[in-house]
């Protein structure tokens, strides 16, 4: 039956094309709708005051200053820990060893780590940092948990960046009598820098947007954090609480707009850097 009922290839192509066009429009429209709703409802809420005033009455009034500060602190700590570990791992994998069992195990570990859902990181951070190490719900606990979460991203992007540095650079450096470490720090890392920075910026984006892992480790205190041992509420957590408990829809939209704009900016910077980077490495 099916064989007989065959369409003309050209007719089939037309139908498929229309169908694909339709599905693509649906996908693109839905995604644009999300952006549009957030910006349309959120942008009118934004003002310098919204960014620089502390929330009052559980966020019903005031701005989101303390949550912006908390987000930046948390992200900063996460990167402070994850960047050296991640870049170090990448240097070891690419410059200091040969492909073998050890590298394969390390890569497998990083890959598995990347697949673990954030709520598991949250559970883990809660037990280890909050309870066992007695950091309590704090910026420190949250930052360390996030560091573990973004580690695989930093390892992978740094590894790719270092790998794409042309072998000729290294040969020239060695021929001038440099040690391996000198070659790595003076030649390889500077040329891989844009790629590494890209990974770091991607991680910033992930840290800013994360909720599940943060809420169990950094807590949700709304005050301006006074040290890394105080609990803090990041923007995403604040948005989650505002929206879910229906505390204030305008403030929720405003917070969402700040979040989305921040992340879009971060992604645009990444994209720009990556473009430059790819452009350069393909030229060389």
């Amino acid at each position, binding site marked *: 039956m099916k064989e007989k009922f065959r369409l003309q290839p050209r007719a089939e192509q037309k139908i498929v094309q229309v169908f694909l066009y339709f599905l*693509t429009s649906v*996908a693109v429209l839905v995604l644009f709708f999300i952006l549009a709703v957030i910006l349309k409802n959120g942008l009118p809420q934004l003002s310098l005051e919204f960014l620089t005033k502390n929330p009052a009455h559980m966020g019903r009034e005031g701005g989101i200053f303390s949550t912006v500060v908390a987000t930046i602190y948390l992200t900063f700590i996460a990167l402070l820990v994850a960047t050296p570990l991640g870049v170090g791992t990448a240097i070891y994998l690419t410059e200091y060893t040969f492909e073998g069992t050890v590298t394969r195990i390390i890569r497998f570990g990083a890959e598995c*780590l990347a697949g673990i859902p954030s709520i598991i990181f949250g559970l883990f951070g809660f037990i280890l940092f909050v309870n066992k190490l007695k950091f309590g719900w704090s910026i420190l606990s949250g930052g360390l948990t996030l560091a573990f979460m973004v580690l695989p991203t930093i390892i992978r992007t740094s590894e790719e960046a270092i790998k794409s540095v042309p072998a000729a650079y290294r040969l020239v450096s060695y021929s001038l009598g440099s040690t391996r470490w000198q070659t790595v720090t003076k030649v390889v890392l500077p040329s891989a820098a844009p790629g590494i920075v890209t990974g770091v910026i991607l991680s910033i984006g992930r840290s800013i947007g994360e909720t599940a892992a943060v809420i169990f480790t950094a807590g949700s205190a709304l005050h301006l954090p006074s040290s890394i041992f105080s609990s803090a509420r990041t923007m995403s957590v604040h948005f989650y609480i505002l929206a879910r408990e229906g505390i204030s829809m305008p403030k929720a939209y405003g917070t969402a707009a700040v979040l989305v704009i921040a992340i879009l900016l971060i*992604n645009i910077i990444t994209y720009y850097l990556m473009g430059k980077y790819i452009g350069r490495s393909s030229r060389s």
Partner: protein
Amino acid sequence: MARHKSGGDRLIRLSLLLVALSAISVLAIITIFIFEQGLPIMAKYGLKNFLLGQDWFPSEQSFGLLPMIVGSLLVTLGALVIGVPLGLASAIFLTEFSNRRLSGFLKPVIELLAGIPSVVYGFLGLMFLVPFIRKNFGGPGLSVLAASIILGIMILPTIISIAIDAIRAVPDSYREGSIALGATRWQTVRMVVLPAARSGLVAGIILGMGRAIGETMAVIMVAGNAADLPGSLLAPVRTLTSNIALEMAYASGEHRQALFATGVILFVIIMILNFLANLAARKQFRK
């Protein structure tokens, strides 16, 4: 001088090795902690009761996780049913059937959207999708359907951007050869391009699947979280991730351990799914 350098080199190599083991040690620490907290209670009440029990009443020592296991799988499947066709269709259209300017503009924009926090998706689901389902299809609106759609949309950017990369990586000579043989564009796509891009496409789908099954906050917001086997697509559902996030705050004693047991099961399911998906990808690649 040379010996001195090589001694320093060895030290650097050793310390870098230690750093490199960090990824592994982090994975090991997480695994150990989750299992250490979760396994004893599973041993105490029996694995079978956890995997097949249908009653989740922690205050009565009844820890059946079957509804949540089914819920996680169902919602992930639903997300794929929505996200994969839309994602692949968009990728095919943008690479093969549209002009370069359009795809050159849309691809980065869609990739930018991949970074939007999941809570934002959940929030919009709560504001628009849930009332829509309640009014038009009945039920509470907070449902399997709502969760599937939100997750499906959430994984769209991931699937689209990876699929576009995979399709673009297929050499043009393949297409030219096929067209030269008289095939239409669609025939070329279906019989030459897609099979050649298969492993990349599968990789994108796997990544999307991982995001869907691991998502927590967006799901809690729209799924209704009833700890019961869902009777229909319009019934509320609870996933393994939301089971942990919902009850963690208040849990103590065995209840808390049971949540870690939930984590153990989630962990194992994700490992199994990744393994199967990788296996499938490799098999197809060999063909």
